């Protein structure tokens, strides 16, 4: 069983990642519940996907302090959702900051380094990913979600292993994007 929280900014691909996770879990005959942010909040706002894999699941949302892993597509969003992490849980975080429009307007662009330092202070199991570099190697900015999922699997923080993740990609991702996503998994496991 695993409680997995994915967080980021609307449009980064968290929903697709949570769907793929759910599919991979279903393939193992496991029970899954997910819950996502849909609607107005999606327009450039913070988005969170809860993925719960267990025999018996009640709440559609992960309770505070219960997530086995937080997969954050953006450093500030990892910090924002850290209260969901259970003691000893893992955090996989993309190192690239996305400043909100408000920051550009007020000139108060925030510092990603500060967020990453805070995460280092709070988490024993922290994986910081250079999302941009890994995506460049894969040849597509759209590879970010799979890279982060694969890093979480590598850290042993998902209820899903590498082979199961690759199986889900083979069965669920349209053919023209399949190889790119499989490359993303290989890259994460290098």
């Amino acid at each position, binding site marked *: 069983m695993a409680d997995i929280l994915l967080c980021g900014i609307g449009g980064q691909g968290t929903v697709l990642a949570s769907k793929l996770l759910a599919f991979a879990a279903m393939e193992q005959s496991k029970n899954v519940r997910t819950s996502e942010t849909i609607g*107005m909040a999606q327009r450039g706002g913070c988005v969170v996907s809860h993925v719960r894999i267990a025999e018996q699941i009640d709440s559609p949302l992960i309770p505070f302090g219960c997530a086995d892993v937080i997969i954050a597509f953006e450093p500030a969003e990892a910090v924002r959702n850290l209260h969901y992490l259970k003691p000893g849980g893992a955090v996989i975080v993309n190192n690239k900051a996305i400043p909100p429009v408000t920051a550009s307007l007020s000139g108060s662009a925030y510092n990603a380094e500060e967020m990453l330092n805070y995460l280092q202070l709070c988490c024993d199991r922290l994986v910081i990913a250079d999302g941009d570099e890994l995506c460049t190697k894969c040849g597509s900015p759209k590879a970010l979600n799979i890279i982060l999922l694969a890093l979480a699997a590598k850290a042993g923080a998902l209820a899903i292993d590498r082979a199961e993740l690759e199986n889900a990609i083979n069965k669920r991702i349209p053919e023209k994007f399949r190889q790119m996503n499989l490359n993303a998994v290989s890259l994460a496991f290098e």
Partner: protein
Amino acid sequence: MSKKFLMGNEAIALGAIHAGVNLVAGYPGTPSTEILESAAKFNDGSIYVEWSVNEKAALEVAAGASYAGARTLVTMKQVGLNVASDPLMSLAYIGIEGGMVIAVADDPGPISSQTEQDTRHFAQFAKLPVFDPSSPDEAYSMIRLAFEYSEKYKTPVIFRPTTRVCHGCASIETDEESAKKNIPAGFAKNTLRWVVFPKTSYLNHIKLEQRYPVLSDDFSSLSCNSLEGAGEKAIACGGVSYSYVKEALCALNENPTLLKITTPYPFPEKKALEMLCRCKEVLVLEELDPVIERELIYLCGKHGLSVTVHGKLDGFAPPAGEGSADSACSAISSYLSINAPVRTERPVPPMLPIRPPVLCAGCPHRASFYAVKQAMKGKKAVFSGDIGCYTLGNAMPLDMVDTCLCMGADVTIAQGLHRIEPDTVNFSFIGDSTFFASGITGVINAVYNQTDIILIVLDNSTTAMTGHQPHPGTGKTMMGNYSEKISIEALLDAIGVSSVEVVNPLDLVSSVDAVKRAADTAGVRAIIFRRPCIAVSKSSSASVINTDKCKNCKKCIKEIGCPAIVASDGTVRIEASLCFGCGLCSQICPFEAIEKGGE
């Protein structure tokens, strides 16, 4: 039987299809939209599915079909039921022949809505049975039950999921084998039955009141209204709150008396009395209004029971906002006087950036708002907005939405404002889908009553906010075919609007000129800013800032607040992954430093 991973809204649609639904009608609204979309997706061609022009139309179309014996499903969000309330109230008296389920999605939080209104109250008000599913799985099986009850009592039934049920996904056991087919018998004329009339309404009212105790007893025997656990300190809940309470009780390792109410109206009194007779105190945990709480207090009074009921009314539970397993856990642990699970203490985090939702990069609404703002610079003007993506025009730096009330109200609010302040130029901004849903009558009102407003139709050729549903202006239908597109300009012309101009908002100079021309004349004038939503059109390549020409004045950022333009390390750049190449910023730059991306 097979196991599928379904969103709650998909489960509702599939459940309705397995219950033999013949017709599905609705109007988009978060969190209900995917019910109808899924019905269209799963349709084998035997079901009629339509996006109606608004919720009132949807309910009436379904009512007609149900008169003729069809099983019908109507879908909308909670505020949509306000629009459909006229037919709803009368239909409760008239009743139906074929089963009719009205799925009305509530939105605790609210996450994407104008209000936190509680549809369980609407059910009480209209005297209609209501089902309140606690999970996507329960929603799937319960929609069949709702159809059965609808036909058993010849009444429309309200089905009321909330956001976390609608948008939650679960692995669900579906039962295709027992799927039903319903063959409508056809409409049987009977004026006494189908024509609403004062004398028959009096008799129908009596029937409705007599039905209450019968349904209440019937509901008390339903397994989805359940009583579990033991002890004098009980908990009562309903809907998704049941999931939160179960999660909390598991974390606390407690098993108190637990009443789950799935049919808040008619209230299953016998089942609730069973609990009240064995306890001294009850904690009620429910989202939105204290519906179950008031029913329990009423029952205690009615039966002279000395049971203390805690909940929203005595401040035990928060009066507004969304529930969670965490809030349930803290309420229950304080109620049972036990320790809540200890949370990990962490150092104080650094200041987090605020991320309010904004118009997408390349959104044509940004250009439309900016053109009006430029044209009206220094003039006294009020901008009335409406419901849709364009409500986000309120954000800085555009700041172009002064009022927003409900669907269609921009057109009429502007008229009221103008009656009191005739020296102000009153603009009303309305999207294409909202215009068809409830804007047209407001325009007729303006022309007939000879007022003075400028109507701005933001025509992006789709219903964008809810996920790009078609509407009368797009011509596409949910049965996969095309009908004649209804022309907004021809409609406005026919109503008698004095001038109607159609402009591409991404042409800034022409747009500003059009607004100035309209502002210089009187009467009801209209400008249609027509440009498809970026989500339904092809992007140009990203615009680029020529760093040799850029003087770093940041005018592009300060004027339009596009999320693709970012200031970092003292310079301004365009984030290529976000930019749509709309070219608005290149028309604003005073140094011609931004090169618009190619088509």
